[in-house]
């Protein structure tokens, strides 16, 4: 019985997809800012030229990609585009110390074959590709570039995807039309992760570390032999060229650091072990759990980028209301807590303590006198601003937070002559927010990268008067395995009784909805779709927020597909 039903369903799948997909494509509208000229004047702004400083009612003039003037008595060039930025705040553009912003992720091999001798895999299978240059995989139109820029970041040190030794990093501007245009500094570091290959050597961390040492020492030997050979080639065997080994040469010469991602405390200690064994200069990025070993991290002299990712906060509202109930209860009954409740309470406390530790890491590092920057690698971009506020609330002074976003990373990356402050002659990487950046309600309005303006559309928060209106005409889109498609909804409201039709844009034919209901802001209905004498029921459930909705369309047991919609203008 079950079996037959399943087969029946599989037969159905193409039909369903045929309904919910359409041939027309849904063009992504891209924000194109046509630069009329490259001269801008931001007037009547509060400038924060460097952390802890402030110039009020100032003007900033930008020309040819540089900051031309900053101050209260600045003459504005006649050909400048004047941007009245009254009561706004100008900061140096933020710098992300380690991420993969704008880096294309290579596609997974569809059916990876285990090599015949897993102990001796080809170098690329083993993750040994230090000669790989991240510039080869940069995409300026990647969504991540715009997203990170939209919260004020203008520069990032980016690294290739992969594990162990994926390649060299580059410092890139978060804007530009080509990979080359983005790159400010190439080969800024040799990137590495202490993670092994799948099922081939080196698979475990200990093998990765052993191989690391061996590669480094062999590179040193080859390098000195090459130098010997270069000095006098007579009667010497020609040294072989090995691009893997050559990638280590600038590290051995201490011209560039090894950039390690190390989130956890043990990873960090292992990276420090390698540094101590081999003596390279070290940058640690995306550190999340360095707080138990602050002293060791400090004495190592490594450059540190702390992660902008934080574990989720325990929701305050939830806790409060719970506490309220608890206190009410205890007040009434004075019932002692059961062992299970006590245990749960203890576990919650310890988890919360851990969250507090993570959140307070930046403050602790500052107190210990460590100069650090931030990295966005594993952080969700949408959380970064609130995470910074959480760190500040946990004791990180605002000007230190700002320094960690601007002056510190500029210095750590050797760019302090060009970036990190709002000063004459520096590169015009700026962020302009409508309120002080760390204010909860602050929104970034403009970002300048290399003197180019990126203007942000600010959606005013929708006023919700509490009443949700489902009635009306809506346009929807759904995402299915066959692509994006769209159509129309019409909802009628007959004194609280809802009804409606749904159509898709290919057929245009309307289908009657069933069980239309509005519960709070959740609109749900179902409809039947027939083809070739078969009928399939499709359920829809979306949440309405003013003139938009979001939710899912569920055709039988084929899974759920995201569905979005907006109200048609009247």
């Amino acid at each position, binding site marked *: 019985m079950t079996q037959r039903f399943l087969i029946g369903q599989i037969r159905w799948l193409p039909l369903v997809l045929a309904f919910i997909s359409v041939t027309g494509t849904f063009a992504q509208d891209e924000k194109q800012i046509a630069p009329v000229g490259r001269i801008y004047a931001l007037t009547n702004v509060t400038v924060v030229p460097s952390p802890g400083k402030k110039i009020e009612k100032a003007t900033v003039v930008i020309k040819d990609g540089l900051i031309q003037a900053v101050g209260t008595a600045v003459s504005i060039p006649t050909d400048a585009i004047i941007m009245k930025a009254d009561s706004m705040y100008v900061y140096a553009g933020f710098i992300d110390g380690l991420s993969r912003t704008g880096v294309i992720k290579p596609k997974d091999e569809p059916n990876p074959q*285990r090599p*015949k*001798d*897993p*102990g*001796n895999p080809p170098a690329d299978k083993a993750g040994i590709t230090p000669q790989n240059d991240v510039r080869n995989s940069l995409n300026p139109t990647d969504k991540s570039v715009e997203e990170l820029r939209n919260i004020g970041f203008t520069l990032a040190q980016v690294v290739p995807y992969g594990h162990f030794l994926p390649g060299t990093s580059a410092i890139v501007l978060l804007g530009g039309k080509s990979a080359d245009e983005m790159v400010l500094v190439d080969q800024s570091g040799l990137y590495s992760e202490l993670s092994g290959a799948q*099922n*081939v*050597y*080196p*698979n*475990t*961390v*200990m*093998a990765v*570390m*052993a*191989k690391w*040492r*061996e590669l480094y*020492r*062999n590179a040193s*030997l080859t390098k000195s*032999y090459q130098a*010997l050979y270069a000095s*006098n080639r007579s*009667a*010497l*065997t020609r*040294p072989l060229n090995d691009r893997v080994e050559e990638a280590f040469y600038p590290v051995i010469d201490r011209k560039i650091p090894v950039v390690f991602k190390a989130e956890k*405390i*043990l990873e960090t*200690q*292992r990276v420090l*072990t390698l540094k101590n064994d081999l003596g390279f200069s070290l940058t640690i990025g995306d550190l999340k*759990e360095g707080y*138990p*070993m602050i002293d*060791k991290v400090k004495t190592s002299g490594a450059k540190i980028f702390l992660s902008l990712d934080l*574990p*989720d906060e325990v929701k305050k509202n939830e806790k409060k209301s719970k506490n309220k109930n608890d206190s009410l209860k205890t007040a009434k009954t004075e019932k002692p807590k059961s062992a299970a409740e*006590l*245990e*749960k*309470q*203890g*576990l*919650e*406390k*310890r*988890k919360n*303590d*851990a*969250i507090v*530790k*993570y959140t307070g890491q930046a403050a602790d590092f500052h107190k210990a006198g460590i100069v650090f920057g931030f990295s966005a690698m594993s952080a969700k971009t949408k959380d970064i601003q609130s995470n910074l506020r959480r760190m500040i609330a946990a004791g990180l002074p605002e000007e230190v937070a700002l320094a960690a976003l601007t002056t510190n990373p500029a210095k750590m990356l050797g760019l302090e002559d060009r970036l990190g402050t709002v000063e004459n002659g520096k590169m015009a990487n700026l962020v302009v927010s409508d309120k002080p950046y760390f204010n909860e309600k602050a929104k970034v309005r403009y970002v300048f990268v290399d003197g180019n303006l990126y203007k942000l559309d600010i959606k005013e928060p929708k006023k919700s008067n509490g009443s949700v209106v489902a009635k009306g005409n809506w346009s929807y889109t759904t995402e299915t395995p066959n692509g994006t498609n769209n159509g129309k909804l019409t909802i009628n409201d007959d004194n609280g009784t809802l009804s409606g039709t749904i159509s898709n844009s290919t057929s245009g034919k309307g289908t009657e909805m069933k069980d239309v209901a509005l519960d709070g802001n959740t609109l749900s209905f179902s409809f039947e779709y027939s083809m070739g004498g078969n009928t399939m029921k499709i359920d829809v459930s979306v949440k309405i927020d003013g003139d938009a909705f979001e939710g899912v369309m569920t055709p039988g047991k084929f899974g759920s597909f995201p569905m979005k919609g907006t109200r048609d203008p009247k």
Partner: protein
Amino acid sequence: MKNLKLIAACLFLYGVAQAQDKGNLLIKNGTVLTVTKGTLPETDVLVKDGKITQIAKNITAPQGVKTIDAKGLFVMPGIIDAHSHIALDAINEMTSPVTAEVAEADVVNPFQINIYRALGGGVTTIHSLHGSANAIGGQCVVLKLRYGTFDMNAMKMEGVPRTIKFALGENPTRVHGGGSNIVPRTRMGVEFVIRKSFSDAKKYMEEWDAYNKNKLVKGFRGASPVYNLRLETLAEILKGNIIIHCHSYRADEIFMLLKVCKDFGIKKITFQHANEGYKVAPELAAYGAMASVFSDWWAYKFEVYYSTAYNAAILTKNGVVTSINSDDAEMMRHLYHEAGKTQKYGGLSDEEALALITINPAKQLGVESRIGSLEVGKDADIAIFKNHPLSIYGVPQYTIVDGIVRFDRANDPADMRLMVDPKQNLEEATLSEKGVDRCMEGTEFLFTNDKN
């Protein structure tokens, strides 16, 4: 609430312990089981800066030194487990039959709760080994159970000889022959892989020796041999600088490796498990090889079908330095009980039985001058028991490492985790598994068609 306070107190205590990791202590009036120098009733043990400085009656506590009243209790050397896989983040680099270059010292994890649990069983020192997937596995690490430290390096016992894991029989043949279709698939192959590795290492050593010698000649110009960390490590075995600890079960394979060692002039070897060690006990004794065995495990695979719980007793009575190990996070908590079983199976004396988990494993790790007995000058690694440790009713009360109390049964709150995952899902409880053979951890995917 009381519990929470205790946790806080404990963590604080450990914080202090971390900063100053050698303690002072006076243990009063215990029955002192020295293991090497007899049993001393109503005797005191004085500890200064982490070392035992005096064992006598009526010692007065120096000023400010904490005293433990051990009246009616048994004071013994901290238990040493010669075969463990706890406190490690990786166990098997199973991609190659020879992985001498990898080192467990790189992947120590000081946060594992099993460390604390082992302290609760009187264990103070462990030998955490590479797994048994490879004929020549990785280098192992000797750890002192300084639970409370966040520093992985602080767990390592200082100044100990290096050790390396070898493995014979089913495990390497299943992983490489069976799993990857490369040599070894048989015990013949295992012998060949080991002999070839030693021969390569010998050649490598000679090449480097020659190069280093030539380099001293003025005006020498030439390339060095290629640096190979694997051969480098194997060469250290040949030089006698690394002790072999070999996973083995059958008598024939044990005898095989003895011969290989003899041929390459290797003297330092301890056979791990050696379930059939009893069959070649005279040969082991004659060679000076040692054995670290289970008390009674058998039947879990064909290789151990012809085991006997009398193994430790037969080996001991034939003059083989023998220890009892756990290879298991649970069993390591009651090695004193496992040692006690040799009194049932073979009638070993109290001292012989206690030696199996103290001085003998210390010898196998080359640290017998530091730990393994209660003697003046040795590290103050001490376990204090209620009831005799060889009695089923023996319960560790205090476990002391370098003179610092790391376990105190009377002040033992439930939640002793050092690190807590801030993303932990509290609604879900993952129960720990039973009887997982960690020796073969990481190799399971090769045997997915197998029932076991």
